[in-house]
């Protein structure tokens, strides 16, 4: 493993799924409709208020944040690139302890490719993960809560998935 530079590098997480929907709808649900599928119980709002809304401002440079039921807002990151209905790139600035950290920058790129006849291929890449290594203490807390996450999301998916 002879890397030319002496920098820590973590291979990005890459995922591809196909959904039975046109690209425009897939894009809309992923962005404006994020609240409808993101697990609402996993708010990062320090006020502990339940999530009332997840807002992704529809423009490059827009904010990405949750709004709590108490009216408070808590940043998650921002929109680095807004190209509906084909691509969105987000700055994921949530650290391992599920707190917003403006100094942290990992990137999530999501591409929506029409495959014809109402089928869209959705590709996701979460990269620059090595930045998370700098907030290691909190990352442990995230790992410790991982089983809670997985269980919840799996239950949700099996309940609604048509497959």
């Amino acid at each position, binding site marked *: *493993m*002879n*890397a*030319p*530079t*002496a*920098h*820590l*590098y*973590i*291979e990005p*997480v890459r*995922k591809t*799924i196909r*959904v*039975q*929907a046109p690209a425009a*709808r*897939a894009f809309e*649900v*992923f962005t404006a*409709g994020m609240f*409808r*599928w*993101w*697990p609402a119980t996993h708010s990062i709002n320090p006020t502990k208020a*339940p999530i*009332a809304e997840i807002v992704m401002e529809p423009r490059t440079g827009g904010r990405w944040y949750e709004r709590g*039921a108490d009216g408070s807002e808590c940043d998650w990151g921002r929109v680095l690139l807004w190209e509906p209905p084909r691509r969105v790139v987000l700055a994921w600035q949530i650290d*391992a302890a599920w707190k917003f950290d403006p100094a942290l920058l990992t990137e999530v790129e999501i591409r929506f490719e029409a495959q014809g006849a109402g089928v869209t291929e*959705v590709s*996701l890449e*979460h990269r620059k*993960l090595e930045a*998370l*290594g*700098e*907030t*290691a*203490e909190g*990352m*442990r807390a*995230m*790992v*410790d809560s*991982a089983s809670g*996450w*997985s269980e919840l*999301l*799996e239950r*949700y*998916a099996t*309940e*609604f*998935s*048509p497959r």
Partner: protein
Amino acid sequence: MTYGNALTALADPTRRAVFERLSAGPLSVGEIAAELPVSRPAVSQHLKVLKEAGLVRHEADGVRRVYEVDPRGLAELRSWLDRFWNDALAAFKAEVERAPQPRRRKKTR
């Protein structure tokens, strides 16, 4: 869990520096110590923690032990996010493919 251990190990800036030196290629304890403002025993101690976290490995090479990055450690480092996105995208797919009406729940509060 190795994942947490790996990140905790890299939280220490000196240990991170040791690890980054190794990402450029295998080195002995003495070679690492020569490049950093840290004593040999301290380097050895950092290497021990990195090894326990699964981030580096060594081959016993007589008296001169050569350390290198253990690629499996980094693989585990990202496995949590890998699982997270699997689950999140499954939930996303389920929502996209639901019946066309966009409202799933009423805002009650």
